[in-house]
């Protein structure tokens, strides 16, 4: 009786398991997250994943209209920190397939308009100080102590 039940269960589950395997193979690959320079991003990863667009949108208006040039949520700083050196020298476009911005946006099927106008490669001056604005290990420790 017991053996028959197990057999029935196996028969039932086998096609489902096979389908799951097939599905994974045909799916869009998970994004490859390129780690930025420095210890940690300007805010927690969970927060940045959900809210980076809102912060960038806010910063853009502040900088454009009021001349506020803080670097915390500046797009230029994102690019400077997360762009990776290209094999041919210089930096790869952060908007190229597989790069930091594009890899997630491709996965989520959301187009990026930023780089129609904005530079997708960091400038020389920006790469020198890249990561300087990220949080240090000490700051992270302090934050976790507060929590």
């Amino acid at each position, binding site marked *: 009786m017991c053996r028959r039940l197990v057999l029935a269960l196996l028969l039932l589950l086998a096609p489902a398991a096979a389908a799951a395997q097939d599905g994974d193979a045909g799916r869009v690959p998970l994004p490859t997250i390129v780690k930025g320079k420095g210890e940690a991003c300007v805010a927690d990863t969970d927060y940045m994943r959900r809210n980076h667009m809102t912060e960038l949108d806010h910063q853009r208006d502040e900088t454009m209209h009021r001349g506020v*040039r*803080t670097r915390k949520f500046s797009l230029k700083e994102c690019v400077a920190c997360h762009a990776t050196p290209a094999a041919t020298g210089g930096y790869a476009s952060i908007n190229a397939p597989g790069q930091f911005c594009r890899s997630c946006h491709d996965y989520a099927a959301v187009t990026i308009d930023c780089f129609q106008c904005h530079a997708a*490669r960091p400038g020389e001056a920006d790469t020198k100080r890249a990561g300087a604005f990220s949080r240090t290990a000490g700051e992270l420790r302090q934050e976790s102590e507060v929590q």
Partner: protein
Amino acid sequence: MTGRTPQQGFDPRRRRFLSAAAAAAGVTLAPGVTFYGVTAAGSAAARAPEDPVTSSVRWGLLVDVNKCREGCNACVTACVEENGLRGNGRPETDAQWIRKVELRDPSTGAKRSLPLMCQHCASPPCVDVCPTGASFKRADGIVLVDKHICIGCRYCMLACPYKARSFIHEVVEDQKPYAPRGKGTVESCTFCVHRVDEGRTPACVEACAEAGGDAMTFGDLNDPDSRISKQVAAYVTDQIRPDLGLDPGVRYRNL
């Protein structure tokens, strides 16, 4: 193009008097002890990155036409390099933020050569006509285009009497990180706003000095102690088309 410009509505002398009076008032901390605040108006370096621009500063540019050499293109080259204005070899449609204009008086043959760019008007017509609010004047007098909300209608290009604006017809690549530019939007001279916010002068002004011309002076028109204010006060200077009442921030001497 000769004759003094009528001041329309805004009188800088009145503002200077009022601010001087306010400074003189000071704060009395104790009998006989008065604290006079240190004003940093006019010094862009004094503004912290998190502080917004204020109307206590009005950026202006003075061009001494006598010192501007015919055939010298240093300011234009510097602008192209600084802002990444690489064209497509099509001068009719390529972006042009600053250009050299050669003038000749047909009756005498006298020649004049001068740079012409966005005049950063106090009452900019491009801002008046913009249907989306993309064309705007910053508090410190710099006229800009917010390309995030520009729809590329080009109404501002028609309204500008100085022909200062360009429309981007083709896809732009490899922009400078501090000067975003893209297809389908209008753009013009920004007074190198990214440099001004760092306390530096525009690229054209720097290049002119390096080329030995020293024809351009950039500074705060609201600060009576700035080099530009002293020159504007000491010499007769002209605004182009003063009859339009736009009060441009760019002035010309010896025109």
